[in-house]
């Protein structure tokens, strides 16, 4: 049995995993990153439009600060987020942009003087300040009060991932490529590493570590129509849940992005609308102002996606041989802007649709985009139930997105979580009591168990076809667990998935050749994926309210009285066919921003009994003026500074807010 030892085992080579490993390494702990693909090919690469950080450099961002970013994020989450974590995030995000600037990310910069932009369909001239010239620029994004999204043209994730992956090389952090974690090694209370399969040779080995971190991104490939890369199959989520100890939070919260190109499902950035692009229907009518007079095209993604599907249902979709869709119009932005700030969008339109967005409309329809749910952790990134297991980024639920994530907050979260959790992992490894004593027998037992499962699949003759099962699962999810959900459809999904799970236990492969075996990979992943799909569908069936991206047509109101709580799912036994669900209440009495109207979307909701009292209390504190400036007031409402690692505490300088 081959065993590799390290201090920190990071599963996933995207931005979160890389940044976390760099943090641990800088504190003197060895880290190894496992990645399905070369790190620079991770799905972080696909982030286009930018990352939110309240730098307030551009004119339209003036007045922005952590408080505004906090409120936008909590409203976006439909009050599902952990507000302390949101505070940690918004205070660290400007630091993350500035660190990345020093590491070489070629952020687009502010140019002083007049420039023409498109706002609400109109050409407008805005003037950038002399003193902001050359600082990092921001663009507009959905669900935000200020222009806050920092960007590198529309290849922000690409530029960030290139810089951070190269930084990891500079720090001599090994990335073990084409390696897949099959199971976490644990004793029921302590995580000790993972059983790992080499995707090139087929070898199964063990990695033993003091701390193990899951940074495997999202699970979009549970759906047929998704913007996610083909590697985003949720295996990191699944192996955490399969411990029976670690829990997944809010898996029913799934985001659909309004502008995936139709029918290929490839993303075109929210920056298209942020920069002034419009959504139009079959007759060329701009319909969003009819539904959302306040934010129009730039309401949060859950709201825009729902309005688009609603508009199609009313018969306003453009028809094509693949089905109905709507149009994204960026022609009004002009050739220069598209060729400089939206060049990936131009490429995608050119290569996949055969159209030129400078003069043609882009066919779009919402598609699965983001997994808000993930491995439930404390604000430190550590699982509250499985010691030594950490998670960061899209794979985690610490939980800053609640039931809907804002555009620009995910790629920001990856590096911010990497910075924060990296420090806490280092703290964990610093403690002598956390030295991993390696129970060789336990490691062996886990390795043998995984090998036996693989052998069973390889030796099964005439088993079920894994790719056919996967396709059925994806179709069930897309048809029944989508943007609009109802009890009967969700029940049908749960029933169908349970049947599929039974069949998936009987998968076989046609080829047992050594070396890379793509069919075997599908075969062992599909069982995990169906469990995860069941967790989403069952969680959605059980949650009889609408919140953020989880919309129940049969329960259209947000119901804080009964559902201001986080779903926690565990998978207790190998033979179980449903997850075990528990709920963790969110307490309005501790919130800085008690639940209310989001500023867009539905206005009716059922209040939590404690909300009015907390709202009154906050008003009183604000009115008294006793707290002082905005920082002091915030501290009076919900202190969070103590939750951050010491090196990341402290205010952020702005042009209008010198330190």
């Amino acid at each position, binding site marked *: 049995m081959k065993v590799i030892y390290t201090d920190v085992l990071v599963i996933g080579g995207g931005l979160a995993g890389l940044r976390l490993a760099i943090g641990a390494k800088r504190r003197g702990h060895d880290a190894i990153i496992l990645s399905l693909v070369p790190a620079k090919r991770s799905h972080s690469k696909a982030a286009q439009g930018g990352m939110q950080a309240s730098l307030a450099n551009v004119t339209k961002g003036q007045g922005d600060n952590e408080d505004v970013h906090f409120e936008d994020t909590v409203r976006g989450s439909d009050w599902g987020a952990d507000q302390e974590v949101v505070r940690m995030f918004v205070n660290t995000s400007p630091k993350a942009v500035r660190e990345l600037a020093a590491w070489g990310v070629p*952020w687009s910069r502010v140019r002083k003087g007049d420039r023409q932009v498109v706002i609400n369909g109109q050409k407008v001239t805005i003037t950038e300040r002399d003193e902001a010239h*050359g600082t990092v620029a921001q663009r507009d994004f959905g669900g935000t009060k200020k222009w806050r999204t920092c960007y590198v*043209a529309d290849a922000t994730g*690409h530029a960030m991932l290139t810089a951070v992956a190269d*930084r990891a090389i500079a720090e001599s952090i090994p990335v073990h490529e084409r390696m897949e974690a099959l199971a976490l090694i644990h004793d029921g209370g302590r995580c000790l590493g993972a059983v790992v399969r080499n995707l090139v040779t087929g070898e199964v080995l063990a990695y033993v570590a003091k701390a193990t971190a899951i940074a495997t991104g999202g699970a979009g490939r549970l759906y047929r129509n998704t913007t996610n890369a083909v590697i985003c199959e949720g295996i990191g989520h699944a192996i955490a849940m399969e411990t029976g100890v670690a829990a997944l939070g809010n898996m029913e919260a799934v985001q659909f992005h309004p502008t995936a190109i139709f029918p290929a499902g490839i993303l075109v950035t929210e920056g298209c609308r942020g920069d002034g692009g419009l959504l139009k229907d079959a007759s060329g009518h701009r319909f969003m102002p009819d539904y959302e007079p306040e934010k129009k095209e730039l309401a949060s993604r859950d709201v825009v996606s729902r309005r688009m599907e609603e508009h199609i249902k009313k018969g306003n979709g453009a028809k094509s041989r693949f089905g109905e869709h709507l149009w994204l119009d960026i022609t009004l932005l002009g050739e220069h802007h598209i060729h400089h700030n939206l060049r990936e969008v131009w490429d995608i339109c050119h290569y996949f649709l055969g159209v030129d967005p400078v003069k043609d409309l882009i066919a779009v329809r919402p598609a699965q985009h983001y997994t808000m749910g993930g491995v439930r952790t404390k604000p430190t990134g550590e699982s509250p139930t499985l010691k030594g297991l950490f998670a960061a980024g899209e794979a985690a639920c610490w939980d800053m997105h609640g039931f809907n994530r804002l555009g620009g907050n995910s790629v920001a979260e990856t590096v911010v979580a990497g910075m924060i959790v990296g420090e806490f992992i280092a703290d964990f490894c610093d403690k002598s009591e956390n030295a991993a004593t390696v129970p060789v027998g336990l490691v062996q037992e886990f390795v043998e168990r995984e090998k036996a499962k693989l052998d069973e699949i390889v030796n099964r003759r005439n088993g079920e076809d894994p*790719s056919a099962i996967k396709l059925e699962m994806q179709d069930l999810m897309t048809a029944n667990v989508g943007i609009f959900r109802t009890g009967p459809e969700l029940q049908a999904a749960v029933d169908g998935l349970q049947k599929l799970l039974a069949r998936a236990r009987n998968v076989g492969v046609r080829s047992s*050749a050594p*070396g890379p075996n793509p069919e075997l990979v599908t075969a062992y992943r599909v069982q995990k994926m169906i469990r995860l799909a069941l967790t989403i569908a069952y969680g959605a069936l059980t949650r009889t309210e609408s919140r953020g991206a989880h919309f129940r047509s049969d329960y259209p109101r947000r119901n804080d009285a009964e559902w201001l709580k986080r779903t926690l799912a565990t998978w207790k036994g190998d033979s179980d066919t449903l997850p075990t669900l528990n709920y963790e209440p969110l307490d309005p009495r501790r919130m800085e921003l008690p639940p209310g109207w989001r500023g867009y979307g539905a206005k009716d909701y059922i209040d939590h009994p404690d909300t009015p009292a907390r709202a009154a209390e906050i008003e009183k504190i604000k009115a008294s003026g006793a707290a002082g400036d905005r920082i002091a007031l915030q501290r009076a409402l919900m202190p969070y500074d103590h939750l951050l690692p010491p090196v990341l505490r402290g*205010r952020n300088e702005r042009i209008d807010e010198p*330190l």
Partner: protein
Amino acid sequence: MAEVKAARTLTFKILRYNPRVPGDKPRLQSYQLEEADGMTLFIALNEIRDKQDASLAFDFVCRAGICGSCAMTIDGRPGLACRTLTKNLGAEITLAPLPVFELIADLSVDTGKWMRGMSERLQTWVHMKQEEIDLKRIEDRMDPDLAEEIFELDRCIECGCCVAGCGTARMREDFVGAVGLNKVARFRLDPRDKRTDDDYYELVGDDAGVFGCMSLLGCHDVCPKQLPLQTQIAFLRRKMVLQGTKG
């Protein structure tokens, strides 16, 4: 009404070889597939694997032309398979793995290992003037045009097409390729990097570096991101000649 044309039947001739199967020999294997509207090589190869041959190995990740995983030789020319539409190809399509890189199996090659080696050798990261960054302070300012110029070169996705299309890379195993030279050009441009031409000369001032380039410029022709490789290599060579003749 638009004329309805009968769908073409495409023949894919794919170079098959799994070096881990004892006795396996490289061979061209044919598959037939009915073309569909908007079909890309990503769609076609997955359909072949799902319906005809589960053992076929290839790499895709983003399937949107941005991650660089799926470079392969398409009818003899290196390119990204995910964004290659079959309608732009003939009815017979020949696919082979990229040359130069270590073969994993069939169409899958190990570009990751090659790129990591190149990055370590050329130290493809900003060598900061001071390692300590005050994260609370406003970032250092940069001219917006310069930021855009750096980004222009930073768009490389390390797909390996330029290396596969390079004459020198076929002859010299240690040649850093256009990908490596472009990275040096990128950091040379970046005022945040403290390295000088003296340092860069140490890295690429030889036949494994910029002087190994024979100016065939296959790299420039096949780069899927249309990076200005021709001008960058020529410019870097002039600078390195100057540096080399200085002392």
